[in-house]
């Protein structure tokens, strides 16, 4: 029965899975096998990882715990103090939170869709063809990705101001596209690189032109890549602070990044409301992230290590 359980987790059959049961070494074997640890090393490993996990989880957990406390108990050190949902009630019904949420969703969704759509053909061209202007374009994409917002924020602000677009969602959409387009094109190139060229060739043999090949053969295959790219764009735009703070003023125009700042600033100190709003912002983002995170590793290697 012992062998049955050990085989399930993919390790070699051992009488006792050493790493997880320190202090119970197999009597038959004195030399540890490869990948096994002594009880002390195993203890240290778990202790370090537990400490790291604790640090990683503490701030968000404390946020969650605090959001259920009334205002007077916000800073108490106890885990539960007068459990209440008042903070959530107040945030949703008495502040413009839902408006901010709507603004954020609108701006970020439009940015993501436009960004992925217009970048995909470029990613494909960069992945499959050699053409004059390819190297300059690659460099442009790379350099614009490292553009600091500080260099574009003032001219963009003045342009938006000139055309009366400040406090309009379209101002932030255009601005976020400056981040999203170079990034998406670069990522998509990485994904198209992983699709075998033989598929293009078979399409060509069957009489498709390059656009047909791209649209009918490659795009359907690239759907996971499109999804990951879109997801990254979504997360980046969702968490953007500087442009959102500078371009959007007035309670009804804010996005979530701006709105959260209104709870705690020079004039107000509504920590209890801030925690409830923060939880409401973080939960959907975390769920989306949790769903997409299994693609993270492949996405990173496709996007980051290819050049």
């Amino acid at each position, binding site marked *: 029965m012992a062998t049955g359980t050990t085989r399930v987790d993919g*390790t070699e059959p051992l009488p006792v*899975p050493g790493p*997880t049961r320190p202090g119970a070494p197999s009597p038959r074997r004195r030399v540890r096998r490869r*990948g096994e640890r002594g009880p002390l090393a*195993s203890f240290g*490993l778990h202790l370090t*990882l537990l400490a*790291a*996990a604790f*640090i*990683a989880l503490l*701030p968000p957990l404390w*946020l969650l715990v605090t959001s259920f406390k009334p205002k007077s108990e916000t*800073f108490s*050190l106890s885990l539960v103090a007068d459990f209440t949902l008042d903070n959530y009630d107040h945030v949703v019904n008495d502040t413009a939170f839902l408006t901010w949420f709507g603004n954020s969703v609108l701006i970020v969704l439009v940015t993501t869709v436009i960004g992925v759509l*217009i970048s995909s*053909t*470029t990613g494909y*061209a*960069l992945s*499959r*063809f*050699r053409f*004059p202007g*390819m190297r300059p*374009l*690659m460099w*442009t994409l790379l*350099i*614009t990705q490292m553009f*600091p*917002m*500080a*260099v574009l924020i*003032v001219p963009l602000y*003045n*342009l938006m*101001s000139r055309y009366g677009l400040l406090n309009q969602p379209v101002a932030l959409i255009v*601005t976020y596209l400056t981040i999203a*387009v*170079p990034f998406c094109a670069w990522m998509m*190139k990485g994904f198209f*690189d*992983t699709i075998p*060229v033989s598929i293009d060739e078979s399409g060509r043999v069957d009489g498709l032109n390059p*656009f047909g090949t791209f649209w009918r053969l490659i795009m359907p295959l690239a759907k996971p890549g499109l999804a990951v790219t879109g997801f990254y764009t979504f997360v980046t735009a969702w*968490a953007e*602070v500087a442009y959102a703070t*500078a371009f959007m003023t007035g309670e009804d125009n804010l996005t*979530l990044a701006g709105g*959260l*700042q209104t709870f705690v600033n020079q004039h107000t100190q509504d*920590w209890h409301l801030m925690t409830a709003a923060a939880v409401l912002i973080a939960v959907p*983002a*975390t769920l989306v*992230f949790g769903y997409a995170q299994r693609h993270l*590793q492949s996405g*990173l*290697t496709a996007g980051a*290590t290819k050049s």
Partner: protein
Amino acid sequence: MADATHPVDTTPGGGTATAPPTPADAGDGRPGPRRTGRSLRQRLADYWYAWAMITPVVAVITVIIGYPLVRGVYLSLTDADEANVERTIGVNTIEATYDFVGLENYRDVLTDDVFWDRLGWTVLWTVACVGITFLVGLGLANMLNRVFRGRTLYRMALILPWAIPAFVSIFAWRMLFNERNGILNGVLDSGGVEGIAWLSDPTWAKVSVIAVNVWLGVPFMLIAMLGALQSIPAEQYEAAEMDGANAWQRFVNITLPGVRSVSMTVVLLSTIWTFNMFPVIFLLTRGGPAGSTDILVTEAFRLAFVNSPRDFAGSATWGVLILLLLVLFAIAYRRALRRQGEVW
């Protein structure tokens, strides 16, 4: 005719697109004298669909990045501020009245101690954040890169900071750091230690912002390094063990070389991100106390959008200088990589 239609042979591990052109397509990817023999018409016939495919992105980049960039550079050469830029109020448009002042802004900024102070702190901040994040990420990745019970749980807990929007986590940290009531000082108090002015003492404020940025940055580093570690073939470790290498020797001689190329990429990326990291400092300390935690980008933002009157020209000047610094860094980094034989 055929050059452009030949798809580049790309294999998952290859990334051949930036490799030196093979003889078949020599001269196509770069401007040069070799191309002069071919007419524009013929080149259009060869490349029109590649060019058509990149048109949307080229157009968008030109309009929303290129044009603002040029304007930003121009603004940095003027005395534009809140009072004299063109703006629309209701239906009235007020014309711009700012003047061209040449390099005056640059002279002012570069002769001012503030810029050099901020630059020094920005460099320290970037080096500290990237260095600590990288070491912690690599260490944790090494621990997670083995088979043991609870591995998935640890992994999920450790990447959670990445899943939460940064500005939300930063507010959570502000609450923990709260000087009078925060949980950190509460714990210190109950241990008999006097509370620390986390965000209002210049030195502790610097420590705090670095700590929060490391907290935010470790998950990315962890996932990237875990991917790199898993790509190292297990046979290499077996062979080393046969030869009697101990754990440390295996780490130095197999693991480190194995994660090198990924490390190069993620260190470059996170250096640029950290250098430009706006939200951590803006939301945690607002650059305070007294500007002691202001990095270059938050100072540029402050000049244009926090201070009154708004100094657009000054902010644009800082922006251009920041961009120049980053470009210099990227060039130096690329040189260093080339000298070590990396093809990038």
